[in-house]
């Protein structure tokens, strides 16, 4: 039986009067690719923030590989093997793509040298180059990140998150800010690369076509609660999901 990797029990979080999470119970099995959907403010990013230690939940528990990691720091969650990418890519803007990856591999990954040794060494350089190739961003290697197009930034952000081969990766809107035309290219690239490293994936996405194509399972959030959880076929056809998440009433054409 496949291992349950991540499990949350009764997670709750409030910001003043706003309920960002209430009684969230989610369990993700190793190897799954889970799509997370929901309108803006439904609590998707809050969920990612809590699971990765950026926010501490007010209530409930987070278990990773059966170990309680509630209230741990970002660093501890990262060490434990939960990484993430961001809605707005979080990169080192003054450095080039290659330098970004060198830094990531050199301070984290399995190939990091001891702290007093020079960071740039062949194994670190090779790893950084390999990652660039895996995510097909090698042609931008010497471009400073603040001069990159959004699509490449998104890819680099995910590539950085994959350094150190996490057991699980959370992708927060991997295709936001990318043109519809590029979306499937980017997502295809990412899912390919992730499948190769056997990571469990949880991705937040607004484009239902993308969700339908790549997710094995879909969780829909509404007002901090889990509205539906199941296979894409079931969840995406659920009338409540269609009304509150997909944004059109059943049986009607989508308005603009």
């Amino acid at each position, binding site marked *: 039986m496949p291992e349950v990797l991540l499990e949350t029990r009764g997670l709750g979080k409030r910001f003043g009067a706003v309920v960002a999470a209430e009684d969230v119970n989610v369990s993700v099995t190793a190897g799954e690719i889970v799509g997370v959907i929901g309108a803006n403010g439904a609590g998707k990013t809050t969920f990612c923030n809590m699971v*990765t230690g950026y926010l501490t939940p007010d209530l409930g528990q987070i278990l990773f590989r059966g170990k309680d990691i509630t209230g741990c*720091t*970002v*660093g501890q969650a*990262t*060490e434990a093997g939960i*990484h*993430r990418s961001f809605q707005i890519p*979080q*990169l*080192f*803007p*003054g*450095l080039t793509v290659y330098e970004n990856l*060198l*830094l*990531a591999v*050199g*301070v*984290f990954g399995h190939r*990091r*040298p*001891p*702290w*007093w*040794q*020079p*960071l*740039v*060494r062949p194994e670190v350089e090779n790893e950084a180059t390999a990652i660039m190739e895996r995510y097909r961003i090698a042609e931008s290697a010497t471009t400073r990140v603040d001069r990159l197009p959004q699509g490449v930034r998104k890819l680099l952000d995910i590539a*950085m*998150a994959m*350094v*150190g081969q996490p057991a699980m990766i959370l992708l927060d809107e991997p295709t936001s800010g990318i043109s519809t035309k590029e979306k499937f290219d980017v997502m295809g690239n990412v899912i390919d690369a992730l499948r190769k490293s056997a990571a469990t994936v949880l991705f937040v996405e607004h484009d239902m076509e993308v969700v339908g194509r790549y997710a094995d399972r879909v969780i829909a959030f509404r007002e901090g609660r889990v509205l539906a959880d199941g296979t894409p076929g079931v969840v995406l056809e659920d009338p409540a999901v269609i009304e509150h998440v997909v944004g059109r009433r059943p049986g009607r054409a989508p308005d603009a």
Partner: protein
Amino acid sequence: MTLLRRVRLTTAGIAVATAALLALWPLLPAWAAHTVGVSLGGGLVVLGLLILIRFGLVSFGQGLFFAIGGYAAALANQFLGITDMLVLSVAGIASAGAVAWALGYIVRGHRGIFFAMLNLAFSMILFGILAKTVVLGSTDGFSVGVPTLLGFAPDPEAGRLTFMLFGYIVVFTAVVAWWVDRILASPIGYAGQGVRENELRLRYLGVSARGAVHIAYIAAAKLAALGGVFTVLLIGHVTPEDTAYWTKSGEFVFVAILGGSGNVAAPFIAQTVFELVRTFALQYAPDAWQMLLGITLLLVILFLPGGLWSLADRLRGRDA
């Protein structure tokens, strides 16, 4: 140019500069040797600032640790009768390291102007204590005797600046600069770039940004203290006004910006330029010295954001 090659080039440069300075000793007039010594001392403080700048931080209170180094040496000399320059140096470094370790728990969560201001406040507290405490010499400070090294005392006729002290400062500074260069190229140095560029991403790479800042803060403090020890040994006197007051800290920041953070040699070059210009300016135009500083600082900010070192890069043609 790869980073590894840059580290090796810098190592070679440091070795050549050290050998040249030591060989030049017989030819150097006393004032020149003094200027070199004082510039290396001040340059160490600025080297500490360079580390912080690599981390994206500027301290407006580095005079705090400069003063701690100077006073630790002076007090150990005055009250414990220690004259060995090595012991005095260790005393300075250890005191500053301990203070920075404790204060580090406060400053490591601060960035930008809050980091700058907090350090300013620390240094002004020390200034307030030093200037008002009679045992610590009040505003007059202390004098320090001529130092010895490993049991060898210099010829009493030779004055304060002997080859022993000069050589000690040159060699010690060279070793420290080499070590700093190496550390800046190591994972912890790169973590500094991460703190500067995007702390959130660094945290999500499993690195504690606060921990890294804490380490850099202690390192910068130790360098400043060593600079303070050297300066006191050279000048033979220490006062609160010339070490802990905010204008001294401001001067160090000025030199750091002037030199740029491109290379560990930059602080020493900039500090030497600074000392030389000051010597002449105070002689010929004492009322225009600060104006000169101010205008230079503005010009560097506007036209040479990488400092003097970037000028060298530009002349060579980048990455040649």
